[in-house]
């Protein structure tokens, strides 16, 4: 009813090309940003920020990364966990080699290391596609994970084999390490995610995004239109790995505060892939929805029974959570195989014509 674009005329191409051409959408985004930047840190408790919001943001960023590759360019990858790991280890090395530079600079720079590795493992993508490419990226996953364990230089020869995060400050306020409050870390993560989502949105709405999607939909036609396949695919690998790398660095520096190679295992890759598929291939909004669904829903389910006064054995809750989450994933995929983002699209269309059916 309120969601109507009637009367919102565009008189030039610039306004028609806007990512959110409808006023209500722009207001919605503004409201979400306001809540995220002001309400959540102000009203949220430590549990909400540390256990839900920070990891949600980090996983959303990694999901956007994989979505750029799998959803937009059509290249299936199972190496997400490893690319996140490259970001984390690169950030750790940079931070210990050059402690004078601000950690936020290194978190973002670590993405470039991940991008370089991503391009290297993306080279086979010219020749192979689909499941076969997934296997090639699986090789990246296992090889890189092996590196994280076997090359002690990467974790500065720590006897524990883990990377540990020290305290770093920004304007005198600790932003990483045990002294940093969850609010500061949340705001840092949120800022990075917002800016990088904006960049991703700009990319996919412009020439580069169209080239990616052209390669995904019909690579032969794209090639005969002068889109060079290898550079386009490698660019997708680079940007995707960059996002995953930054997400990996954030995971260690802003959330865990330390990590072992196990964190970046194949499970992590699958976890992110599920978020992409459930959220919706080729949708930035879907990346957030998918991350929320796969990550937040189980936490929510786990905390509902105690809060409504049901005393269930914790292990039972754990099992039930798994079952319900799995069931819901299957349910949503049957209802809407194109993911939650498409569900939202459909809902918007319904709202637009309400109260009429079409």
């Amino acid at each position, binding site marked *: 009813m309120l969601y109507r674009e009637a009367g919102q005329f565009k008189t*030039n*191409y*610039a306004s*028609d*090309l806007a990512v959110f051409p409808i006023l209500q959408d722009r207001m919605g985004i503004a409201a979400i940003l306001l809540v995220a930047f002001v309400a959540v840190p102000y009203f949220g408790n430590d549990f909400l920020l540390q256990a839900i919001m920070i990891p949600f943001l980090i996983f959303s960023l990694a999901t956007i990364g994989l979505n750029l590759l799998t959803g937009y360019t059509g290249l299936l990858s199972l190496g997400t966990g490893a690319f996140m790991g490259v970001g984390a280890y690169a950030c750790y090395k940079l931070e210990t080699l050059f402690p004078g530079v601000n950690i936020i600079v290194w978190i973002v720079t670590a993405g470039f290391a991940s991008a370089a590795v991503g391009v290297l493992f993306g080279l086979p993508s010219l020749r192979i596609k689909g499941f076969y490419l997934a296997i090639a990226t699986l090789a990246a996953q296992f090889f890189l994970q092996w590196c994280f364990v076997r090359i002690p230089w990467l974790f500065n020869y720590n006897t524990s084999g883990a990377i540990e995060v020290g305290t770093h400050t920004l304007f005198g306020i600790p932003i990483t390490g045990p002294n940093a409050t969850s609010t500061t870390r949340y705001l840092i993560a949120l800022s990075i995610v917002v800016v990088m989502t904006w*960049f991703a949105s*700009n*990319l996919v*709405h*412009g*020439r*580069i995004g*169209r*080239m990616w*999607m*052209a390669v*995904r*939909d*019909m690579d*032969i*036609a*794209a*090639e*005969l*239109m*002068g*889109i*060079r396949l290898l550079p386009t695919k490698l*660019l997708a690998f680079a940007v995707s790995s960059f996002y995953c790398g930054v997400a990996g660095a954030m995971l260690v520096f802003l959330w865990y505060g330390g990590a072992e190679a196990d964190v970046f295992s194949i499970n992590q890759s699958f976890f992110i892939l599920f978020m992409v598929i459930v959220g919706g291939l*080729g949708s930035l909004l879907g990346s957030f929805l998918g991350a929320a669904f796969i990550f937040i829903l189980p936490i929510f389910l786990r905390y509902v029974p105690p809060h409504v006064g049901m005393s269930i054995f914790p292990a039972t809750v754990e099992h039930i959570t798994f079952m319900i989450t799995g069931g819901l994933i299957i349910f949503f995929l049957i209802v809407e195989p194109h993911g939650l983002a498409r569900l939202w699209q459909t809902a918007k269309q319904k709202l637009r014509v309400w109260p009429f059916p079409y």
Partner: protein
Amino acid sequence: MRAPSVAEIAAGDVLLAVEGVSLAFGGVKAVSDVSFDIRKGEIRAIIGPNGAGKTSMLNVINGFYHPQAGRITFKGKTRRAMRPHAAAAGGIARTFQNVALFKSMTTLDNIMAGRSLKMHKSFFWQIFRHGPALSEEIEHRKTAEEIIDFLEIEHIRRIPVGKLPYGLQKRVELGRALAMEPDLLLLDEPMAGMNLEEKEDMSRYILSMNNYYGTTIALIEHDMGVVMDLSDRVVVLDYGRKIADGTPDEVKKNKAVIDAYLGVAH
């Protein structure tokens, strides 16, 4: 711009020439020793029965297949084989026999994707989508809208092309090829599976393109009425060989062509 007369075309510059092109897949000879030229501004039809090697010929011209023998001269530059990217950059666009659109993208995005080669603003500006990148986008959007107007597909601008009916998909594909502002446009059966009205529309677009934009067109088509009406010159292939080449009237009377289409008594 006025369409050139037959005499003018015969005297005109050769835009593309293939000489002695042979292409084989293992033991199957798709094209053997075919030579012909396409002159600037003409509509050149390539006809022949099924399996004559027409589509293979187009694939050779835009570099998708590399012939085992022969030479291709495009815009005065002779080479052994074209490369897809070089062909596209040099101004060869094409449409496909079975529509090869980017199915999940909208009509507008498909046409804009056709302009990828003409857009150069760097990755740096792209991530901000402001300044040069945005003005480039707007500039090319204007051209895309002109093409949309020309092909009368305004109403399907925002619809993913996968959802469009076949006839409209063919038209969008033509628009995408046109967006490349090609010097040579290869049309592989642009009217296959269309009804009379759609064929007439499509013929009108092809003629207008030739007239107004001066686009040289090479066209494969099975509808002889359309071929004879539209084209300036016709080359006929059969079993990978060239059996006739000339104006529609000459070709129509050619014994070898009649035999190829109707068969010969043994």
